[in-house]
């Protein structure tokens, strides 16, 4: 049970301030070459400073914190789309990120085609997706809409489709970033239920949210990130209480 599947060992992530300097495009860059180069080298933004933590197998791990403190950077490091500047990130297992609304979908394609597209993007083979496609369609409750182009879908329907795909990918490590806010209450409940089912079947989950109630409902442990470092890490209720206290004070 206590085998760590995600290990952050003294991880720091620094972003060069690209947008500040490259916004002017290649024309401005070439015109002010020496200045531009030195400013890229000197101005940096520290998104995470020396954080270390472990997520254990079969655990539901919550991450809370205010906007812009490094929650999403942490998730991106786990997903392997970012590399740390210092320290080590070790991940053991296949990662399924639950994408934000509509990401990875193509508007002109039908819901059915998009299920295949999304599944393959997540790392499954086409045969594996096709084996599960009926189950996915049933779960999504999209009925006849499944053969309509996704551009005709409402926001809630897109969220359903996205969650349904991920829910049937047999994820080993599931990353969830604030995606449950859309969709009607009924579907949100279904998502939470699915997450609870995942929990029982032993899927490791990392859940980023602003919603303390949601975190309390499903997480085993919670990490509170503040000011680009770990403010508190431990038992869900302890962390949630302290976080609530700070929120009400400020």
């Amino acid at each position, binding site marked *: 049970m206590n085998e760590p599947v995600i290990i952050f060992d003294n991880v720091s992530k620094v*972003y*060069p301030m*690209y*947008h500040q300097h*490259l*916004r002017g*495009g*290649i*024309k401005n*860059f070439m015109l002010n070459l020496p200045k531009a180069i030195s400013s890229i080298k000197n101005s940096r933004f520290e998104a995470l400073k020396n954080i270390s933590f472990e997520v254990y197998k079969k655990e539901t791990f919550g991450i809370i914190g205010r906007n812009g403190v490094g929650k999403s950077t942490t998730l*991106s490091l*786990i*997903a*392997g*789309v*970012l*590399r740390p500047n210092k320290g*080590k*990130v*070790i*991940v053991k297992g*296949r*990662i399924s*990120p639950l*994408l*934000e609304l*509509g*990401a*990875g979908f*193509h*508007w*002109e*394609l039908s819901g059915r*085609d998009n299920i*295949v*597209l999304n599944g*393959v*993007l*997540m*790392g*499954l*083979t*086409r045969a594996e997706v096709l084996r599960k496609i009926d189950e996915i369609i049933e779960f999504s409750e999209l009925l006849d809409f499944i053969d309509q182009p996704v551009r005709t879908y409402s926001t809630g329907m897109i969220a359903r489709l996205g969650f349904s795909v991920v829910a049937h990918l047999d994820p080993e490590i599931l990353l969830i970033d604030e995606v449950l806010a859309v969709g009607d209450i009924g579907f949100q409940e279904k998502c939470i239920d699915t997450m609870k089912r995942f929990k029982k079947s032993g899927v490791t989950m990392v859940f980023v949210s602003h919603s303390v109630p949601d975190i309390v409902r499903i997480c085993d442990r919670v990490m509170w990130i503040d000011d680009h470092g770990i403010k508190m890490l431990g038992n869900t209720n302890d962390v949630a209480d302290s976080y609530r206290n700070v929120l009400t004070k400020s």
Partner: protein
Amino acid sequence: MAKNMRSFENYKDLIIVLIQKEMKVMYGNNVLGYLWSIANPLAFATVFFIAFKVVMRIEMENYPLFLIAGLFPWQWFSHSVNFSPMLFLGENGPIIKKVNFPRNIIPLVMVLRDTIHFILSIPVILLFLLIYHKLPSISWIYGVPLLLCIQFLMIYGISLILSSINLFFRDMEKLVSLLMTFVFYFTPIIYPVSMIPEKYQYLINFNPLAPLIINWKNLFLHGTLDSVYLVLSLAYSIVFFMVGHLIYKKLSWRFAEVL
């Protein structure tokens, strides 16, 4: 480091599914879509025919055929290259930010799509040959695949360069469309090499696209390939591919940082 644990089979399926997607979007599942996509080079051929043959009265036999033979390969080149800077932006941006998959699959699929499209337009060239009472040469059997590979490699390399760099310098797109105008008129597409004043003819060799286009036209019109141009264009495409691969390797892990 999170390892990329994708199997070969997933990689292959990813390419197939993405190409299917492109085809569905491009051709909209019907013949009309196909007609639209060959309309562009045909429209250009008409315009140049009127401008140069009817108005300026260029001395050339079968000028429409000559135009078609050059404009179709050009169309492939220009479509892919113009499309490249935006590849990692738009609808692909959010996936790159969240999912760890080989990003070079996006340019690869785009170039494959345009390659398939070019192959599908070869019958149109054939049709024009027949209209002018000519027959395709037996040398097409090896010539077409050979030139296809060279052009594929060249475009894929260019695409890797432009799509990667455009994430950091978002005005690449404008620069590219400007450059493409030069490339078009400095490549012997609407005129033959022989019409270039002799003292300037050697300059053709510095245009990476020129040797390739010259060979396409030789192949389609006369069934011949110029071996010097062939080697030259192959060399150019290998250079583009290697430079593209290098730039991509150097920048790809930063893509999610700048999106």
